[in-house]
């Protein structure tokens, strides 16, 4: 078995109205990694995600899950959708049941599991996103952040190997964003491959193992967070922004305030450590 859990080969997608959304996408996603997709609105991130899960069928090329090419028949689609879950951007577009518990049970019921197993999974999924206390509530009484978490539980209940989040932190307050990112990390620790799209460069930089930059329906560049965000030309061409932490670090390094061979900081904590250790050396 290859180490790549999900691949696409020459994948192109054209919407029925003729809009070319994706052009020749070749991707290899490693199992158990944290992958971010960045790129402006309309660059094709969501369309790629829908292709991952078989909701959209590529016009050309194919999607490969665990080394097996997806055939678009009922059985292989069921297998793919069971293993690749998508959490949509707007929970209002995803939650269709009025009752939280029933809503979360939908995916598991579709896998034709037994009643007790469904119940166990729903309980577990709700606990994982911290919404167990709300299980008897009506969906329309929940806040946006709570709906978002229920939407995540919706997918967790199917025990997927890959979870794809479409702009998970958009319209969330900082507190809820942090909680959601914590959920991603917990999922990842369990061995689930987490893929997300985001406009938040700070999140992409500090959280991901690997970043894919999309532009105009194509993959513009892929690489580690540092490779992507240290490339000023790329940042400019793809309308991205340099993460503040990296910018501060590069500036300090340029002005000779810190050594060139220190570890590149990924988050605030690491940046402070770098600065503090340099101070000591200076004294």
């Amino acid at each position, binding site marked *: 078995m290859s180490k790549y859990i999900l691949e696409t080969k020459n994948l192109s997608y054209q919407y029925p109205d003729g809009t070319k959304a994706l052009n020749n996408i070749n991707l290899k996603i490693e199992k158990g990694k944290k992958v971010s997709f960045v790129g402006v609105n309309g660059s094709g991130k969501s369309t790629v995600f829908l292709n991952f899960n078989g909701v959209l069928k590529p016009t050309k090329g194919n999607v490969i899950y665990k080394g097996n090419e997806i055939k678009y028949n009922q059985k292989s689609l069921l297998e793919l959708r069971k293993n690749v879950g998508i959490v949509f951007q707007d929970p209002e577009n995803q939650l269709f049941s009025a009752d939280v*518990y029933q809503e979360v049970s939908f995916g598991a019921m579709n896998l034709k599991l037994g009643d007790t197993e469904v119940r166990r999974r729903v309980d577990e999924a709700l606990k994982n996103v911290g919404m167990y206390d709300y299980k008897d509530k*009506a969906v329309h009484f929940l806040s946006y952040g709570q709906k978002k978490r229920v939407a995540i539980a919706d997918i967790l209940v199917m025990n997927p190997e890959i979870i794809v989040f479409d702009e998970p932190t958009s319209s969330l307050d900082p507190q809820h964003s942090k909680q959601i990112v914590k959920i991603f990390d917990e999922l990842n620790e369990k061995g689930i491959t987490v893929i997300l799209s985001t406009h938040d460069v700070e999140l992409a930089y500090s959280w991901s193992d690997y970043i894919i930059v999309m532009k105009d329906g194509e993959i513009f560049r892929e690489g580690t967070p540092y490779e992507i965000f240290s490339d000023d030309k790329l940042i400019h061409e793809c309308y991205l922004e340099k993460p503040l932490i990296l910018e501060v670090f590069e500036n300090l390094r340029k002005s000779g305030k810190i050594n060139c061979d220190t570890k590149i900081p990924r988050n605030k904590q690491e940046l402070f450590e770098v600065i503090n250790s340099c101070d000591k050396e200076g004294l």
Partner: protein
Amino acid sequence: MISIDKLAYTSELKNVNPMEKFIFAMVTIIVCISLNNIAVSIIILLLMASITVFKGKLPLKNYIQLMSLPLAFLIMGVITIAVNVVSTNKGLIFSFSIFDIRLGCTWDSISIAARLFLKSLASVSCLYFLTLTTPIFEVLSVLRKLKVPKLFVELMGLIYRFIFVLLDTVNMIYISQNSRLGYSTYRTGLSSLGKLVTSLFLSAYKRSQNIYTAMESRCYDGEINLLENHYKRSYKNIFLIIVVELILIVISFSGNIFGGNL
């Protein structure tokens, strides 16, 4: 509508087996309508009200407010029955003439009107008992158990969920129009309202497609299967329901208790 829903979720009777509540409400309505007895109607009204308010811990104020909703319709309807075209003076309480037609109110018509009024109010109290103690999705699960066609129940569930989404959308569009003076005059108001309806339809259509996509990605295969809550059957409740209904029937047949055949 929204407040009724909220009250149902906070009711203390929420966790009682919905099937028992459903049967209780429905059988009582049938008894009430078919017996057509003033005493029975009053008893049902008081019984249902006290169960909903005291057992369900519903604020009395809310209950009275909700009860007064159908009252306006009821009174209007009942007046037309109480006041009728009359030809004789037998049993007449008062009468008046409009052109050549003589309208009046007799003891008989008053009695019919009162009977109808109380019967309707008692039936409403039965329905309120159900809706104020049972969240809608549990009513749906009862309907499913009663073998109501699946499509019908699924549609009810979806409609119920999306009423709230629709109301939210209406509210958002309305605010955005209003903040741009869309309702400043009667004319612009009408035109804005038209546009509101149009864009509401479009966004509803678009959302339905999005929902379908999201459901499809969760292995939707054309049937919405959801986990049902299991409730213990309470033999005590079933016994009580039977006793109450029997008492009501006995009361109506021993008409003499309340001074003759009302």
